[in-house]
């Protein structure tokens, strides 16, 4: 009875906080529980059978399922829709009936009103959303193009019309050589860096391993599903499993190392991992479009460029080795597309922005006007305009200035612009951090004989970065969300490809909303994840202050 009593008490507390305190004179502590149970049972009745009597109550579970099926949803979808809507409906009915039965408006009017309005708003929102997601929407437009959205046009064609894929049966309709080995080569170190970074946090292994495995599982599922597949699913699945194993090993290694070493060694590992992340970024750019020197090196080591032996590969005579693939043509930056572009540009903005931000922050607080005046001018100039303005500048005006000495492609210019833009915002953030460094630290460094430059790098900068790390992460989140602006410059990133699908994919003309919702979801997931990381960092640094103030 005690355990059940405990549950009942917390349940009553929850009910009180949502619906308000019981106000009716007929409510006594003894019949409180019975009244709640009455409310729940009535709610179930209304939730299941509502709508069966003409127009009396909002549609209940059975009605909803029937409605959904009549609109053309599959039986499974209709059942799921009915269940979700039903649950929310029962909940709302329970809140309403509790309020009515116990007459809470007598005691806490505002609470009761708040409870009722929110409950029914939830019903409308959830029902509308699930109706859209399960009944109205046809997700095949996104599903069929999932590869295109992730890697862009060129890579998809290379993959789906490459030797080994089903559409490549004769030389005439084989497009190219499968280039997506480059993506896997980027994925492995990325997973390794990510997993080892998590390994340095002394949490229970399950807290990382379970979500990580789930993520890889979902990716494998997405890759394996036979519907609308235009590639061999064996390759992605094996490579994803390899990536999963790499992640496990990296996590295990760093977790073990941190558990047996002192904290300072763990800190050193963390800085190596950060350097590793930067190296992975440059490696990613280099592997996608290797410079001539790398290609020549591969030839010298014995490889033959793949495009030269294309027919032989198609005929099945030759299986290209790694060196052959490395010696072959890369994928130029202008041909990158999809989610990959968003990720690269956002990472560039972070990496370059951090470096540029440090230089500008120090320049700004220098006492030599030759450094401070241009720094302030640049920071204020870049921050005065919206990002879209600067991206446009980078595409149309910057080439006029840069072409004589560096003829870069649009995406590279985007990388630079994002770096400069992020750098100016990070410089502002760091300015506050640098000012907040305890002057005693600086005095101690000076008293030891360190030069001003050494003081800045060894003492001020680490402290400033530590205190302002949450703000820096929020700048990163902003940069990530701003990569959606690339579509205005006609760069084929995830957003542009997705929103143009209804117009470009002839099978799905007119399905306008589904790609947009998927885009919103994908970007939201990454941003939400980063904001969670930022919150965790803030807690770790002990910067959150919980004061007081309940004002409602």
């Amino acid at each position, binding site marked *: 009875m005690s355990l059940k009593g405990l549950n009942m008490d917390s349940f009553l507390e929850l009910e009180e906080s949502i619906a308000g305190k019981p106000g009716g004179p007929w409510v006594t502590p003894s019949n409180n529980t019975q009244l709640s149970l009455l409310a729940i049972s009535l709610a179930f009745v209304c939730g299941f059978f509502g709508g069966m009597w003409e127009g009396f109550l909002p549609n209940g579970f059975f009605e909803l399922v029937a409605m959904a099926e009549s609109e053309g949803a599959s039986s499974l979808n209709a059942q799921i829709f009915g269940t979700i809507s039903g649950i929310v409906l029962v909940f709302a009915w329970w809140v309403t009936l509790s309020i009515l039965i116990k007459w809470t408006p007598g005691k806490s009017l505002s609470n009761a009103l708040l409870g009722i309005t929110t409950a029914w708003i939830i019903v409308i929102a959830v029902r509308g959303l699930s109706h859209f997601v399960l009944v109205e929407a046809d997700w095949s437009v996104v599903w069929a193009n999932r590869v295109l959205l992730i890697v862009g046009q060129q890579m998809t064609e290379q993959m789906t019309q490459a030797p080994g894929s089903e559409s490549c049966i004769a030389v005439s309709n084989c497009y190219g050589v499968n280039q997506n080995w480059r993506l896997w080569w980027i994925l492995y170190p990325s997973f390794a860096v990510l997993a080892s970074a998590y390994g340095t946090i002394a949490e229970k292994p399950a807290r990382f391993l379970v979500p990580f495995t789930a993520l890889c599982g979902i990716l494998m599922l997405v890759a394996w599903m036979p519907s609308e597949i235009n590639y061999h699913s064996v390759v992605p699945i094996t490579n994803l499993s390899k990536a999963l194993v790499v992640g496990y090993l990296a996590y295990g290694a760093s977790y073990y190392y941190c558990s047996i070493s002192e904290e300072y060694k763990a800190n050193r590992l963390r800085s190596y991992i950060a350097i590793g992340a930067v190296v992975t970024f440059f490696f990613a750019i280099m592997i996608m479009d290797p410079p001539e020197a790398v290609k020549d090196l591969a030839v010298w080591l014995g490889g033959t460029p793949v495009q030269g032996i294309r027919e032989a590969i198609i005929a099945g005579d030759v299986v290209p080795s790694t060196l052959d693939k490395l010696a072959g043509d890369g994928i130029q930056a202008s041909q990158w597309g999809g989610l990959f572009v968003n990720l690269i540009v956002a990472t560039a903005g972070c990496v370059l922005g951090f470096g540029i931000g440090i230089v500008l922050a120090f320049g700004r607080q220098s006492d030599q006007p030759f450094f401070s005046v241009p720094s302030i001018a640049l920071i204020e100039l870049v921050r005065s305009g919206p990002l879209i303005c600067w991206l446009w500048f980078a595409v149309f005006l910057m080439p006029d200035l840069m072409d004589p000495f560096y003829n870069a492609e649009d995406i590279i210019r985007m990388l630079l612009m994002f770096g400069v833009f992020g750098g100016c915002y990070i410089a502002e953030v760091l300015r506050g951090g640098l000012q907040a460094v305890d002057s005693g630290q600086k*005095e101690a*460094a000076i008293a030891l004989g360190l030069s001003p430059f050494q003081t800045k790098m060894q003492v001020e900068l680490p402290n400033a970065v530590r205190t302002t790390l949450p703000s820096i992460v929020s700048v990163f989140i902003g940069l990530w969300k701003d990569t959606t602006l690339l579509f205005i410059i006609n760069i084929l990133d995830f957003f542009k490809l997705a929103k143009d699908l209804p117009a470009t994919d002839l099978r799905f003309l007119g399905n306008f909303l589904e790609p947009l919702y998927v885009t919103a979801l994908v970007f939201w997931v990454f941003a939400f994840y980063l904001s969670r990381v930022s919150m965790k960092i803030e807690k770790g640094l002990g910067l959150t202050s919980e004061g007081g103030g309940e004002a409602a």
Partner: protein
Amino acid sequence: MSEYDRDDKPATGYDETIIDTKGVKVNFGDFWALKGIDISVKKGEIIVILGPSGSGKSTYIRTLNRLQPHSGGTVVIDGITVDDDTTVADMKYVRAEIGFVFQQFNLFPHLTIMENITLAPMKVKGIPKREAEDQAMALLEKVGIPEQAYKYPSGLSGGQQQRVAIARALAMDPKIMLFDEPTSALDPEMIKEVLDVMIDLAKEDVTMIVVTHEMGFAMAVADRVILFDEGELVEQNTPAEFFDNPQHKRTKLFLEQIL
């Protein structure tokens, strides 16, 4: 950059004056924190500076390594004049010769104890890492906390942190050690361990100037006790004479208030 040459400089013998300050004045706007201090310190001397708060004691010792620029008078450390025109190399030399221990310890929180101590020898003197770490371990043993070498300052008590600060200052092999109220920010039970380290240090031939309120320390090891009041040097004498036979009225007033 591992050696430093001093062969163009005469060595100071035991009776050589290592700190010579004449007429040092410091002002902040209209407020004159120091109104003309004449102090001359010989190599190996232990000086204790006493005085009420706001009398300019900390300001004075901070002028010695130019943490506080002086507005008048001369400061000469080990033959080098410290003023606006001192070259960067000379200033570095002077600051390496002077070890400074702060009231608030001022350890670098993002570095381990070992890194705190080895930072300056490695970056300023160019001593290689292995050597610097051996030196640091020796110093930590000297101050009594070798087991904390790889912890972070936040994990140490106040007394331990201050001892690390002393070790960090000693790592540069200074001829002069300046202490700015080293025990004022400590809990009473930790004051003794820091004072013990300072007393051991006093037995070596390091010149020490200590601003403190610990009279016991003054009476035990000081060669000279100096009283500051309102930016002026009121009295300087041997400890015995200072505490038993104060000459000035203000000295007597001060001693009445604290003893």
